[in-house]
């Protein structure tokens, strides 16, 4: 197994490697030089967006752009700070929807994928419908959800589940299918029942796939929440964007977008941490190789 793309910055890694060979690489506490190296690894990911913001800022002030068309980043931040009370209310609502919707989605996906793995007829019956469910345009279904279920939490949660459970189901099914047939045979000679085989082999083996699916879905979850709110809600970043746009508060639209991005990144990181807690063996093996 090779190193994965997200944290691969080969140009910066050589100073770390020699100490890694000496052992203790897997232990979490960074030494003095380790902390510097960790900062060096993070730096490009932080510097790039900062640079882009700077270009944006300079362009707006030099070209004297109308702030209702394109506000400067500093204006966005200061206006967002002034509106922090209301911003937090909307953020709270969106967070709540996202967490509830995504949690339900994960549970539903695990149940469906497990049932599909264990029952071939169910897999054959369900797969076409599942794929078809992903072709439903969110843009068309979201307003209908409002008509059916009103402006409350339910239509938001339903939309998030609809959008996010499919990648998780597919990831899990791929993971189950990747089980080595020889390992299945081995467990059978040990006298394992079908359920034991699933619990001891197929499920733990599919966990890396599962977490990949989770990471992909997490970003969709926030998007789906925003979209569901955009077409009709009492609170939430989506409806706040819509209202701000209508009153030409472009700065607050950008502010809300920024908050969405932060939520996505936070959710992504929570999943990454969870993956390390659930599969320490997976990350240890990756580093060991």
């Amino acid at each position, binding site marked *: 197994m090779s190193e994965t793309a997200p944290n691969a910055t080969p140009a910066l890694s050589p100073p770390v490697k020699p100490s890694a060979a000496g052992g203790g690489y897997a232990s979490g506490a960074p030494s003095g030089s380790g902390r510097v190296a960790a900062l060096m690894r993070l730096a490009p990911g932080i510097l790039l967006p900062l640079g882009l913001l700077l270009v944006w800022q300079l362009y707006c002030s030099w070209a004297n752009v109308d702030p209702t068309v394109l506000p400067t980043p500093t204006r966005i931040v200061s206006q967002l700070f002034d509106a922090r009370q209301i911003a937090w209310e909307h953020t709270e609502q969106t967070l709540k929807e996202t967490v509830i919707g995504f949690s339900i989605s994960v549970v539903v996906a695990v149940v469906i994928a497990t049932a599909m793995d264990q029952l071939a007829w169910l897999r054959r019956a369900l797969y076409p419908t599942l794929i078809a469910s992903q072709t439903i345009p969110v843009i068309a279904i979201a307003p209908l959800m409002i008509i059916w279920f009103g402006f409350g939490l339910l239509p938001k949660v339903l939309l998030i589940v609809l959008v996010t459970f499919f990648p998780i189901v597919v990831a899990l099914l791929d993971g189950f299918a990747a089980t*080595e047939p*020889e*390992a299945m*045979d*081995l*467990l*059978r*000679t*040990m*006298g*394992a029942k079908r359920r*034991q085989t699933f619990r*001891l*082999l197929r499920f*733990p*083996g599919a*966990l890396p796939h599962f977490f990949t699916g989770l990471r992909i879905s997490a970003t969709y979850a926030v998007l789906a929440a925003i979209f569901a709110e955009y077409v009709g809600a009492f609170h939430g970043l989506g409806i706040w964007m819509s209202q701000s746009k209508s009153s030409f508060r472009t700065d607050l639209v950008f502010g809300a977008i920024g908050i969405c991005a932060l939520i996505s990144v936070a959710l992504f990181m929570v999943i990454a941490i969870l993956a390390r807690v659930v*599969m320490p*063996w*997976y990350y*240890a*093996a990756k580093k*060991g*190789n």
Partner: protein
Amino acid sequence: MTSTASAPAAAATVELRGVDKTFRSRRGEVPVLRDVDFSARAGEFVSVIGPSGCGKSTLFKLIAGLDRADAGTLTVNDKPLDPKDHPVAFMPQKDLLFPWRSVVRNVVLPLQIAGVGKAEARARADRLFPLFGLEGFEDTYPFALSGGMRQRAALMRTVIQERPLMLLDEPFGALDSLTRTDMQEFLLDVWDEFGHTIVFITHDIREAIYLSDRIYVMTARPARVRMEITVDLGRPRPLDVIATPRFAELEAQLLHALREENRQQEAAG
């Protein structure tokens, strides 16, 4: 009835008579085994060699109870094989240690499946670790082990089942030659200690001679038994037995038979 880890599991006699096996798919029928006669006495070490793809692994699957013969009889201790009795412990070509389980949890896996209590399973494993030279590695994940250590762990997972018959399918095929030699010696020690009946598949003629009491040479597919050789080299067998004239004689005999079958297998495509 449970025996302790150090007590040898009662060895079993296994016998196949006139066994046929054909694989059927949409593209047609592939006869794999044709009228195979094979036996291993209680406590005997028997190897099976043959051209690759000749159906040795199919033979193993039948004995392991993973598949059924189309014709012929398969008996263990003179009774028809009942897979539910689990008389066979199987060690496949890949070590198949689960990466998410520590070494000791990999080793106790078959006991966990059989419903043995955690404490007893752990106690049985603890008794085996020193013998397998893996003391101190109980809580290590498999990725951190060397190839030889992984194979010893896999062998321990096979031995801990205390089944009377062990099937080893090219267990050392992926090891470098030095580690391989170590493992062969080690396997003989384990066999000496536990006294299983062992059926061993290999490509390696020297490995087969060094380890076995008897060797079956299979023909190209569909596989029959081409010849059966008794290895009259005495035991215990020191490593330098491979330098004796008798060893060379056996090797030449086997090499000749195997090359002929290999040519036929290749000609058959």
